[in-house]
């Protein structure tokens, strides 16, 4: 439907709402009643000075009458219909402009309600994940209960066994001390977790890794090289849990190594020449592509996301990119090129991916896995895999088709027929 249809319908609805006759409004605007009638029925385009005079006659801001002024609401209504699945078949999309013109308040309310539904769905996903999959909560409770069981059993033996020989007494006293220490640490972790969760409501920032990521987010994911040299000890000391402080210290130490291998001025100059290509940059600097990915993810201008995982596929670092939501708990979509790289170390994996579902978008992703043997050639092989997530425009051409449709995780992915699906979606 052409944009002017909205304007004519809006003029008619506002006139009727104000209880004015066509002839009166036409006279005030200096046009004939028959011409206004044509405009109101969307049979004549209207703009410029005539539209301004009609706006004045009806006491309406001209901007709200301009063609396209309701485009955000129209888009919002279309999105609401798209999300309504089977119920959307009964919606008269061909009369959307008419609906918006006649009932702008109701239309705005529908869009607001749809946005509210999206927010609540995200909260449901978060809480569902937290209740069913939160490994930190489960582990913390297990630690506390195990320590408590041991303390209770040992203390009862000490209190109730009158003829306990000194060797056993000493052994149980030592056990009691160990378990009380463990209980204190477990309780501290649990309290930190619950405090953080209640303070951040729906976001539920809590687990140590999330606490560190929240800290990094508050810094814009950026460390100046000079800050790294100083170690950021004061900031790290401000984190709530000892586990988070330990993770943060490790992250800063790694960032300092990356900064040493890829000094910022030279790195920026190289990025300017080659673009954000971690493989070319790694080759140029003679370093691991994952170090380059970490460095690129810290460049604010790039708006890049980054995920790192170990050989089990467990995330060790997450920085989301716009339109590429990352699961908070559990495993991600098995179609991610990150996992292809994990299975084929030292081989670059590159793809344009389309993230399906709410808020998804198209991205260029570049993945790589590096095997490591920290205990020497006979020790176990570890792997670290990384996937740099770039806005599609950074490398892919606008006309390029996505190589692969992917999701965030099965639990919140709408692709019912996906061959890689491992569990039903909670949104279906």
């Amino acid at each position, binding site marked *: 439907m052409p944009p002017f249809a909205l304007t004519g319908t809006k003029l008619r609805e506002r006139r009727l709402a104000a209880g004015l006759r066509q002839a009166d409004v036409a006279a005030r605007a200096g046009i004939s009643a028959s011409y206004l009638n044509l405009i109101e029925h969307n049979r004549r385009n209207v703009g410029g000075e005539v539209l301004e005079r009609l706006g004045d006659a009806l006491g309406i801001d001209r901007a709200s009458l301009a063609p396209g002024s309701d485009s955000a609401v129209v888009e919002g209504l279309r999105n609401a219909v798209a999300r309504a699945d089977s119920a959307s078949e009964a919606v008269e999309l061909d009369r959307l402009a008419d609906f918006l013109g006649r009932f702008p308040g109701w239309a705005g309310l529908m869009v607001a309600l749809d946005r509210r539904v999206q927010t609540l769905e995200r909260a449901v996903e978060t809480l569902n994940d937290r209740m069913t999959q939160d490994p930190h909560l489960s582990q913390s*409770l*297990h630690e506390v*209960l*195990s320590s*408590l*069981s*041991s*303390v*209770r*059993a*040992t203390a*009862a*033996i000490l209190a*109730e*066994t009158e003829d306990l020989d000194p060797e*056993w007494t000493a*052994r*149980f006293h030592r*056990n009691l001390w*160990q*378990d009380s220490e463990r209980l204190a640490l477990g309780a501290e972790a649990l309290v930190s977790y619950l405090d953080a969760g209640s303070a951040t409501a729906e976001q539920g920032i809590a687990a140590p890794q999330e606490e560190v990521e929240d800290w990094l987010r508050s810094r814009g994911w950026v460390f100046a090289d000079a800050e790294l040299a100083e170690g950021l000890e004061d900031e790290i000391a401000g984190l709530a849990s000892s586990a988070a402080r330990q993770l943060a210290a490790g992250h800063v130490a790694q960032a300092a190594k990356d900064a040493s291998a890829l000094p910022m001025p030279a790195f920026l100059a190289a990025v300017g020449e080659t673009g954000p290509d971690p493989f070319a940059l790694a080759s140029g600097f003679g370093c691991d592509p994952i170090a380059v990915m970490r460095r690129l993810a810290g460049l604010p201008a790039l708006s890049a996301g980054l995920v790192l995982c170990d050989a089990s596929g467990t995330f060790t670092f997450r920085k989301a990119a716009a339109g590429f939501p990352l699961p908070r708990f559990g495993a991600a979509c098995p179609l991610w090129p990150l996992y292809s790289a994990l299975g084929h170390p030292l081989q670059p994996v590159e793809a344009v991916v389309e993230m399906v579902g709410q808020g998804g978008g198209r991205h260029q992703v570049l993945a790589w896995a590096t095997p490591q043997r920290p205990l020497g050639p006979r020790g176990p092989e570890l792997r670290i895999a990384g996937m740099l997530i770039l806005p599609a425009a950074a490398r892919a051409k606008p006309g390029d088709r996505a190589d692969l449709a992917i999701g965030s995780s099965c639990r919140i992915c709408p692709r019912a027929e996906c061959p890689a699906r491992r569990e039903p979606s909670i949104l279906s």
Partner: protein
Amino acid sequence: MAQHVLLVEDEPNIAEAIRFLLSRDGWRVSHVAVGDLALAQIRSDRPDLVILDHMLPGLSGIEIVEAIRADPDLAALPVLMLTARGRDRGLAERAGVDRFIAKPFANADILAEVRAMMGR
């Protein structure tokens, strides 16, 4: 000869307390800390009773019970499970656990359950 109880528990201090308790009560007690080793130990030692923790490294307590019940030679072996989580009870019951004790347990409860299961 004293009847034999095999304790499968990965927390060393809990295991030490239970071993002490049961030994003083007249039971012969052996212990493994890793789920993967439990089945081999059961097959070689033929204990009269198994006390299993639910969450173990390697095979979980549930998986061990399932394997016991699936083996005709072991299927009748009495199993007492230590568990911290209520929702695990349904799983454990379906797997074939005879009795439960919730953590944190009282020593008297452990002794009472073992005596009852062994007909003392």
